[in-house]
């Protein structure tokens, strides 16, 4: 493959958006966790909930900052690297991004200062309102960005004139066919990822017998949350998959490694897809199960990749493997959450070091599942940037030189790697330090009131 400005731009966008998504994933979940714990603090006045707010808001602040700075990069890259795409779709997608800034980013920014630094400066009701506003802001932000992304997968409410998209029905643009499923799937993924991060942190404190009361409270709430959400995510994922089958059958065919239209299709647990030969090597599958899952009939017919010409097929191997990574982690989460729930009901949640260690090991897996899910859906959309209508090949910036993109890609690679290491180090440091057991923030010397 030739290293064109477009190819480098795509690598750069994948790198910068893959880096970015780590942070909002945790932001959405943590904002809701903080709101819940602050509400518990106001309702019960038990110091442990305030401790929890203080602890998680330090992590939230670092995480949020990373999300902000890496997000601004993306909003400009759509123009710098994909002028073709932005000139064709700006009429439709530009307003959605604008609404995201207006209804979400400003809301978050306007109340974040009070949430993080305002404990002493505003009354309790205003503080929890600020926390709530930030939490709502994160959900609104996900709403608009997923509406825009979903439109690229299942475009609706538009017409095309001379290669440019024009909106005809804004309701249909925003609530396009895949949006409700994608939004639910992503928000659940955020909450689940956060629940397992919290479970891992709680388990670590319980195992080390440090801040054990805080650890037990955190672990208990995290396990209950995960036990509710993990099975729910399986259901949401199933609905999302059926929606994809309806609108983007070739993506599903790539996810399943399914080349030829057949009935009674097996569910492949493993295979090495071969794009050129239009078949798989080393297949291990369970007969008829893919048909059962996707058509809810053992002998249902599924369209294979050879239904469309080779130049219209997505690259199968990355879609096939990333999908299995995502589902595998999801299944593991269900198993861990179910185990936790049983142990909790037996009153033995903190009794087994092996289970606690498993939770600690599993705590970063949500992020891997999120990345794997996005790789599945975005590579599964190829070779289109707007499914079926605009090819990725036509999306680049004609005036930008390969050397320019190579320069920025090299810079981003170095800077983001460095910042990711710093971020992980700082977060681990904050966890090691633990919740402060000192005086409540009300008694600490804060800002002198003006």
């Amino acid at each position, binding site marked *: 493959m030739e290293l064109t400005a477009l190819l480098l731009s795509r690598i750069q966008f994948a790198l910068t958006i893959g880096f970015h998504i780590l942070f909002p994933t945790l932001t959405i979940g943590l904002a809701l966790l903080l709101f819940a714990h602050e509400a518990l603090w106001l309702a019960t006045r038990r110091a442990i909930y305030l401790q929890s707010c203080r602890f998680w808001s330090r992590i939230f602040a670092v995480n949020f900052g*990373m999300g902000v700075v890496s997000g601004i990069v993306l909003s*400009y890259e759509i123009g710098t690297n994909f002028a073709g795409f932005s000139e064709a779709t700006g009429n439709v997608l530009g307003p959605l991004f*604008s609404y995201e800034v207006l209804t979400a980013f400003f809301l978050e920014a306007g109340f974040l200062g009070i949430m993080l630094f305002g404990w002493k400066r505003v009354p309790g009701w205003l503080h929890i309102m600020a926390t709530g506003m930030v939490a709502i802001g994160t959900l609104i932000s996900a709403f608009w960005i997923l509406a825009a992304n979903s439109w690229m997968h299942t475009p609706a409410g538009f017409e095309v004139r001379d290669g440019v998209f024009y909106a005809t029905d804004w309701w249909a643009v925003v609530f396009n066919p895949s949006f409700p499923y994608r939004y639910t799937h992503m928000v659940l993924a955020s909450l689940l990822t956060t629940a397992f991060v919290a479970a891992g942190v709680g388990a670590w404190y319980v195992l080390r017998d440090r801040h054990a009361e805080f650890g037990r409270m955190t672990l208990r709430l995290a396990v209950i949350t995960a036990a509710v959400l993990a099975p729910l995510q399986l259901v949401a994922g199933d609905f999302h998959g059926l929606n994809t089958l309806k609108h983007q059958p070739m993506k599903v065919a790539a996810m399943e490694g399914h080349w030829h239209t057949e009935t009674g299709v097996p569910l492949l647990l493993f295979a090495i897809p071969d794009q050129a030969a239009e078949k798989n090597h080393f297949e291990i599958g369970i007969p008829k199960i893919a048909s059962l899952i996707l058509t809810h009939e053992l002998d249902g017919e599924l369209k294979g990749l050879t239904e469309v010409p080779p130049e219209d097929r997505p690259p199968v191997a990355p879609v096939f493997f990333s999908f299995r990574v995502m589902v595998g982690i999801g299944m593991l989460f269900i198993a861990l959450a179910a185990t936790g729930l049983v142990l909790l009901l037996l009153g033995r949640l903190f009794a087994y070091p092996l289970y606690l260690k498993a939770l600690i090991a599993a705590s970063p897996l949500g992020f891997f599942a999120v990345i794997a899910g996005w790789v599945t859906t975005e590579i599964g959309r190829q070779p289109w940037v707007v499914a079926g209508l605009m090819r990725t090949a036509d999306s680049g910036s004609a*005036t930008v030189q390969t050397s320019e993109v190579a320069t920025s890609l090299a810079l981003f690679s170095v800077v983001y790697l460095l910042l990711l290491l710093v971020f992980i180090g700082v977060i681990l440091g904050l966890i090691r330090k633990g919740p402060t057991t000192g005086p409540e923030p009300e008694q600490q010397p804060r800002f002198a009131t003006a």
Partner: protein
Amino acid sequence: MTELLPLLLAGAIAFGVTMYVLLDGFDLGVGILFPFADTEDDRDRMMNSLAPIWDGNETWLVLGGAVLFGAFPKAFGILTAAFYLPIMLMLIALVFRGVAFEYRFKFRSRWPWNLAFCAGSMVAAFAQGVILGAYVRGASGVDHQFHWFGVFPLFTGVAVVIAYALLGAAWLNMKTDGPLAILMRRRARMLLVASLGCIAVVSVWTPLLEPAIAARWFSLPNLFVLAPIPVATAVTGWLVWYGLRDDSHDAMAFVASVVLFLITLGGLAISLWPWIVPRSLTIWQAASPPESQIFLGVGLAAILPFVLAYTAHNYWVFRGKVPTGSGYH
């Protein structure tokens, strides 16, 4: 109506850019002034004066980009691609500047994050100045090339660094007291002189660069209509100078330096009108269709007042001087 819409949305972008330049302008200015502080405690205070508000300030940059994307997609594609390297440099610099707010207080040795904060602010300001200079000079050729690597854009890059530092110094004079405020007043006076010098140079240089700009300013009756602008600049400059005399006019000095920025930006708008891709595409040529502009315009009109209200509330909560010793972190 269809004639008016692009004008209103261009006005919204101009408003967003102005808010960004003023608000993140003093943020970046504080970063640029970081090396001039005497102690780490002073640097704590400088940073704490921004900690609760910088995120909102930076959001105006995203608003400007997003509305440009939605209301003038052609201009968004052409301009961002044309300024590829300066934009990338600015974004990476803003990454360093932004993360420094959190990481500086998390590490025992603070100098790497002092450096990230200062260099990030300086490079971001410089890149913005370079883009501004090349933008004012305008595009050439069928593929809308902007030659940003030239003497004039590099000069405007330096000018923006100086001008942001002036805003930052006036901000710190207002938000702090004691030796730090005295130091900042002294720096602010030097920066004021340098900023006025830069404004004068740019005012002479742009008409020389572009005959259309010369015609805009020096033809009759424009010459007389526009004559108050340099006078207002001079008066405002004197007000900043006067406000920096002692510690009792700190708010006036800051407001006057903000007004100085407003006049300068207004002057640039007069030079550029009616282009959105200067001397290549007008506001109307680059506009998205009415259905997009109406959808966008309604949102802006309905939501921006609330944004301004709670942004103002946030500033109100964190009003007053930042005391020494007790940080946020």
